[in-house]
C-alpha cells in the first residue's frame, strides 16, 4: 500500500473494511516518516511507541464499538497542548515543558479515536512565514528541499505534502495555515474566529489565532473541521459552527458570485502566481460561477495594523514565560530582574524578541493611541470593507501567497519582505473570517494556491466551492521524495 495518495477518509474506509489494521496503518506512516523526515524535518518529535500502543488497542476493540475515526493517525503543530507530551511552540524557552492538560481540539481528536503520531515544527510561537524561526531546526519544502515550506505551520504543511501523515492540525494568526498550505501544495483551512476552541492553543495573538486543518484534499479538511469545531465553555470567545459540516459533493458553481480582490493583484504578485490564479478564475467561470472585480480599499493597511495588534497581544501573552513556574530558567542570577532578563534573553529567538519589543512599545503610555488605537480603527475599516464586498458577492478569491516558496535563508535578514508573504491572508484574520487555500497549479515546478474567503460561518459553503474547484483542477502531482534520491 502506498501512503502517498492516501487520504484520511480513505484510511477510515480501509480500517472499517478491515483491509488494513490500525497497527499496519500507523506502521506505514512511521516508516514513511523514517524514510523522508531526515530530509523534510517536519517533525519535532514522533511518538511511535505511543501511537503503536494506541493502534494495538484499536485493533483489540470490537469494530462495532469503535468510534468514527478510530485508528486514523494525525500529527499536530507543536503549539497545541497534549497531556504527557512535551509542548514547546518551537521555542527553547519551553524546552522540557509538559502541559498538565489536553487542548480542547486535542481532546476532541482523542474522543473521535484519532491516533496522535507526533508534534510538528513551526516558527517559534507561530511568529514567521518560513518555519526558519524554529528554535530547533528549519523544515524544508518537500517540493524543493532548498526552499522553505512557509510558516508558521510549515511542519504541518510539509508533513501532509510529504505524506508523513494523512492530515495535520495547524494554527493561523495571519496566514499561518493557508500560506504554508499554498507553498506546499496542500489544502489549508482557517475557520471563522470562534469556530474552534482556542483552549490549549498556546496564544500568540488571542484575537486572531484559530486552529484549523491541513490536508491532502478538501474532503479531509471538512471531516477534520467537523471533529474539532464546537463551542467550548473553557473559551469565552468560542461559538462553534451553526450546523455540522457535511462532506462536500458539489460539482458546479452555478449561481455563485466571486469577487477578485483588485488590491491583491498588484506588483507584489509574481507573474507565475498570477498565471495560475487566472487559470483558477477561468475554472470558476467554467463551473458556472460569476467573477467580478471587488475592491477592499483598506486591506493595504492590513499588514501595518496586524504588525501592531499581533505583537501587542503577543507581548502580553508571552509575559508568562518568566522562568518562575515552568520551562527554561537561567542557571545563575543574582536577583529577580536578572533572572527575568537572562531567562527571556536565552529562551526567546530574535523574531520573538523583535515582536515583544514592538508590542511593548505600541502599548506603552503616550504611544497607545497613535499605534494600538489607530490599528484597531484600521481593523474596523477592514471589517467594513469585507461586509461591503459580501453584500455584492458570495466569496472572495485571490492568490494565497503572492509568491511561490522562496529559498531557505532568502528572507531571514529582511523581516519586511517576510511579512509581505502574508499580504493576502492577514486581512482575513483581522476580520475573523473563514478562508481556505487549495492547490491550483504550479509555477517553476512549485505549488501555487488560491484562497477563497467567505462571510463569517460560511464554512460549509467554502468547503463545497473549494471541492468543486478541486475536482475541476484535478491536480495529481505529488512531490518526489526519498525514493528517487540517492
Amino acid at each position, binding site marked *: 500500500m502506498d501512503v502517498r495518495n492516501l487520504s484520511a477518509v480513505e484510511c477510515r474506509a480501509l480500517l472499517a473494511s478491515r483491509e488494513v489494521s490500525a497497527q499496519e496503518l500507523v506502521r506505514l506512516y512511521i516508516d514513511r516518516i523514517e524514510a523522508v523526515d531526515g530530509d523534510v524535518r517536519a517533525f519535532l518529535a514522533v511518538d511511535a511507541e505511543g501511537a503503536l500502543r494506541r493502534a494495538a488497542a484499536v485493533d483489540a476493540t470490537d469494530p462495532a464499538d469503535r468510534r468514527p475515526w478510530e485508528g486514523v493517525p494525525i500529527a499536530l503543530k507543536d503549539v497545541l497542548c497534549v497531556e504527557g507530551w512535551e509542548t514547546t511552540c518551537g521555542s527553547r524557552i519551553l524546552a522540557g515543558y509538559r502541559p*498538565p492538560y489536553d487542548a480542547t481540539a486535542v481532546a476532541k481528536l482523542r474522543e473521535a479515536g484519532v491516533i496522535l503520531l507526533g508534534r510538528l515544527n513551526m516558527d517559534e510561537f507561530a511568529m514567521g512565514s518560513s518555519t526558519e524561526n524554529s528554535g530547533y531546526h528549519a523544515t524544508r519544502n518537500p517540493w524543493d528541499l532548498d526552499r522553505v515550506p512557509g510558516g508558521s505551520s510549515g511542519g504541518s504543511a510539509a508533513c501532509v505534502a510529504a505524506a508523513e501523515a494523512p492530515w495535520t492540525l495547524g494554527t493561523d494568526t495571519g496566514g499561518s495555515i493557508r500560506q504554508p498550505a499554498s507553498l506546499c501544495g496542500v489544502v489549508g483551512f482557517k475557520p471563522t474566529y470562534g469556530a474552534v476552541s482556542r483552549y490549549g492553543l*498556546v496564544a500568540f495573538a488571542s484575537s486572531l489565532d484559530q486552529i484549523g486543518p491541513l490536508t491532502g484534499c478538501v474532503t479531509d479538511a471538512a471531516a477534520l473541521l467537523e471533529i474539532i469545531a464546537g463551542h467550548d465553555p473553557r473559551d*469565552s*470567545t468560542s461559538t462553534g459552527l451553526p450546523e455540522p459540516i457535511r462532506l462536500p459533493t458539489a460539482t458546479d458553481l452555478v449561481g455563485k458570485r466571486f469577487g477578485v480582490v483588485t488590491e491583491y493583484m498588484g506588483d507584489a504578485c509574481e507573474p507565475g502566481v498570477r498565471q495560475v490564479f487566472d487559470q483558477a478564475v477561468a475554472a470558476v467561470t467554467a463551473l458556472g460561477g460569476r467573477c467580478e472585480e471587488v475592491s477592499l480599499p483598506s486591506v493595504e493597511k492590513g499588514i501595518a495594523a496586524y504588525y501592531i495588534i499581533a505583537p501587542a497581544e503577543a507581548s502580553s501573552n508571552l509575559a508568562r514565560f518568566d522562568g518562575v*513556574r515552568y520551562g527554561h530558567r537561567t542557571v545563575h542570577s543574582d536577583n529577580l530582574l536578572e533572572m527575568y532578563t537572562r531567562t527571556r534573553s536565552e529562551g526567546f529567538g530574535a523574531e520573538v524578541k523583535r515582536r515583544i519589543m514592538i508590542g511593548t512599545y505600541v502599548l506603552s503610555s503616550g504611544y497607545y493611541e497613535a499605534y494600538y488605537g489607530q490599528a484597531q480603527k484600521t481593523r474596523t475599516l477592514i471589517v467594513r470593507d469585507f461586509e461591503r464586498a459580501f453584500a455584492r458577492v458570495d466569496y472572495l478569491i485571490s492568490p494565497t501567497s503572492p509568491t511561490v516558496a522562496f529559498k531557505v535563508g532568502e528572507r531571514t535578514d529582511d523581516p519586511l519582505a517576510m511579512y509581505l508573504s502574508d499580504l493576502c491572508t492577514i486581512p482575513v484574520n483581522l476580520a475573523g473570517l473563514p478562508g481556505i487555500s487549495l492547490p491550483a497549479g504550479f509555477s517553476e515546478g512549485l505549488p501555487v494556491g488560491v484562497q477563497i474567503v467567505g462571510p463569517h460561518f460560511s464554512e460549509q459553503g467554502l468547503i463545497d466551492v473549494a471541492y468543486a474547484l478541486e475536482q475541476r483542477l484535478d491536480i495529481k502531482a505529488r512531490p518526489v521524495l526519498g525514493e528517487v534520491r540517492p
Partner: protein
Amino acid sequence: MSEAPTTPPPAAGGSPGGWEPVIGLEIHVQLSTRTKMFCGCATSFGEDPNTQVCPVCLGHPGTLPVVNERAVEYATRIALALDCTVGGRTIFHRKNYFYPDLPKGYQISQFDLPLGVGGHLDVELDNGDLLRVGITRVHMEEDAGKLVHSGGVTGRIHGADYSLVDFNRGGTPLVEIVSEPDIRSPEQARSFLTQLKSLLEHLDVSDVNMEEGSLRCDANVSLRPPGGEFGTKTELKNVNSFRFVQRGLEAEIDRQVRVLESGDRVTQATVHFDPTTGGISVLRSKEEAHDYRYFPEPDLTPIELDAEYVERVRAGLPEFPAARKERLMHAYALTPYDAGVLSANRLLGDYFERVAAIVGDAKVSAHWVTGDFAAYLNSAGLEVEESAVGPEALAELLGLVAGGTLSGKMAKEVFAEMIEGGRTAGLIVEERGLGQISDTATLEAVVAAVVAANPSQAEEFRQGRDKVFGFFVGQVMKETKGQANPQLVNELLRTYLAR
C-alpha cells in the same frame, strides 16, 4: 440609599499646622464566592500552599479565563449599594507587569469601562454629622498569589536567599473601590472604612476580614492650605487594620507637615507605616512607576449588564445600616445608640429582631443584646453566628425574667453558664434550684420568722429608723439563698413590721 445632604467636611481634629489633609481611599474587597474569578478552583483560606490551583490560575500556556458570574453579581451588589451608575457594557483589561506572584505576567482587571462609576457613601462622623464621600469607581479584578521570602533580614524579596510562591490566593475575585479625595482627616478615613465594612457585611459578599486579607486598604494623602490647590500625594500601602490606617495617616500627615514646613516639597512616593515603631518609611518614588500597558483583554468578551439584570440585583439588596437604624429607632423605640450598634452589624441586628419578636419587649431585648450578649462575643472573640447562645435561647432567659422566675442579677449568672454551651436557661435554673421564690405563702413564713427572731430591730423600725429595713431584707435573702422575689419581700416586710 436615601439621599443625604452634603455637609461641608469639618476639619476634625483641627488642621495640622494650618494644612488641610486631602485623603482618598482604595479598598480591595475579596469576594466570598465559592470559586475563583476565572477558573473553578476553591477560594478557601488557610489551605496547604498550592493545593487550590489549576492550569488556568497557574497561568499555564494555552489556558483561558472564564468569568465567574457570581463574582459579577457580587460586584454589582457592591456598586449598587454605593449608588454607582451600573449597566450597559463593561469590559476587562490586562494590566501588564512582571512579578513572581503574578502567573500570567498580567492581571486581568478593569480600566476605562469599569462595572460601576460615580457613586457615594454617606458616612456618619463621630460628631454625628454626615459626610458624603464620592465613589469614583467600582471594578472587578483577580488577586495575585502570595510570596514567602526566606533568609535575608528585611523579609522582602531583596536580600532573600530564596522566595516561594503560593498560588492558592491567585485568581481570587476582588472588587476595588476607589473613593474621591473627599476625606479630610484620619478619623474620617476610619469612619468611612468602618461604615463601608458594615455595608459590605450587610451585602453578604465578602468575609471583610482585614487580618485574613479579605479587606485591604491603600490611602492617598496630600496636604493643602484649606480650600487651596491639591498638593502632591503619597500612597500609604498595605495597612492591615482600620486603627493602623488612622495612625498611619496621622504619621504620614505629620511627616508631610514637617517636609513642607522645612521648605521642601513632598515627592510622589509609596510609603509604609510600621505599627510597632509608629514610623513611616518612604518605599519608592512613584516617578519610576510601572507603565502597565493596559489593553482590552482579548480572551474575554464584553459583559452587557442589561436593565433587567441590574434591577434584579437591586431588588435582592438587603436593608442598609442607615435605613435599618432609622427603622429600629421607629419600630422598636430604641435609642439612637442602641439602634446604631444593632444596625452596624447585620447579624447582630438580625439576632436582636429575632429575640425581640419572641420576648415582645424590645427595650429589654436591646439592653441584653447590646449589653451582656455583645460583651460576651467581644471577650470570646466570636462572631454572632458562632455564639453558643442562639436568639431563641436568650429569649427563653428573658422570658424567665419577665415571668418573675429570675431576677435580673440571677439572669446574668444563668447567662454566664449558658455561654459555656449546651444548656438552656430553664435547665440551668432547674439544676441549680435557682427559681426565684415568688410564692407569697412561702415567703410570708420566712418574713414572719425573721421579724419574730429580731424583736429589738423591729421595734427600732417602728420608732422610725428606716435604715433597719435593709437589715431585714438582708436576713430574708440570707434565709432564701437570695432567691426571694425582692419586690414581694419588700411588700411582706412592710406589712409584718407594721404589726
